[in-house]
């Protein structure tokens, strides 16, 4: 993964750790948001709002429809 991807992963780690109290060590590419990190649909909405604030870009909820893992979120963020 290039530098941009690593940076995104770091920022996503910050958000997930601060906002949801998730252990940073558990936030890896393969971690599944719902099953492994115990997020639900409301948490996903909060995550989108937080990522919007953080990246200053609009994150369309449709883009998150097929997102399953931390790596998927990073990919969506990089594609914006």
């Amino acid at each position, binding site marked *: 993964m290039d530098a941009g991807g690593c940076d995104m992963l770091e920022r996503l780690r910050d958000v997930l750790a601060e906002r*949801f*109290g998730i252990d940073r060590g558990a936030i890896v590419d393969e971690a599944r948001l719902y099953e492994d990190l115990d997020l*639900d*649909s*409301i*948490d996903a*909405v909060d995550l*989108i*709002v937080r990522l919007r604030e953080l990246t200053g870009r609009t994150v*369309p*909820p*449709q883009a998150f429809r097929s997102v399953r893992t931390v790596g998927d979120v990073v990919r969506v963020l990089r594609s914006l």
Partner: protein
Amino acid sequence: MSLRGHAAAAELGWRWIGTALCYAVFGLGSAVLGIVAVPLVSVAVRDPTRRAAHVRALIGGAMRCFLGLARGLRLVDWHCEGLHRVRAGEAYLIVANHPTLIDAVFLLAQFPQADCVVKAGMARNPFTRHLVRAADYIPNSDPVALLETSVERLASGRSLILFPEGTRTAPGRLPALKPGAAAVAVRSGRRCLPVVIRCEPLTLSKSDPWYRIPPRRPCFFLGVQAPVAPSAVLGEALASRYAHRTFNAWLEAYFAARLEGVR
């Protein structure tokens, strides 16, 4: 066929004709509201807030007329209890279970000034779009906007109607609630006004085609329950990351306890 058999068949046939008539009236009434009444109000009242109040009053009146017609034709009956628990001037998150197609008709007839969420398709459909916009209902277009707008509307002092199941109840089952309504409740800080809806015999459910007529005249029971503050249920857990999940589980059990045995 016995005399009683003939009478029952005639009653069933009458309800079939009456039901078809009601569908036609509902469709025609919606068109008249959308194409004639609402544009007239929109021209006469320029202020969007006052306009929405007028349009909602119109819609509420139309729903009461429709229900009056359906009762007058002896197609349905209904009883509503617990309305004395509603305090005028308080904004509630009205949460109801959703057994039938026409639950919203009852709630809009009873709480005409409340906000409600409409399908994104209705907000785009050329026949209903003006109605939805003039009434300032909330289009269910994207989950982020839906959650934010719902909390804002409650904060502004208007009640909001939500069906936490997000769709009609699967017949024979207890309501399974999605966490959205609970999240709105927790974040808005407003009291929930639970409305327990039963329909006996069940009709217009998720698995009933519209033309299937129930064996006897159905009766709706709308039970308006005592308002519940999420903070009273959750205590310190209100600030927890899991507050909406905890409140959702509580709400689901609340409805289950009141619907158990009537499935």
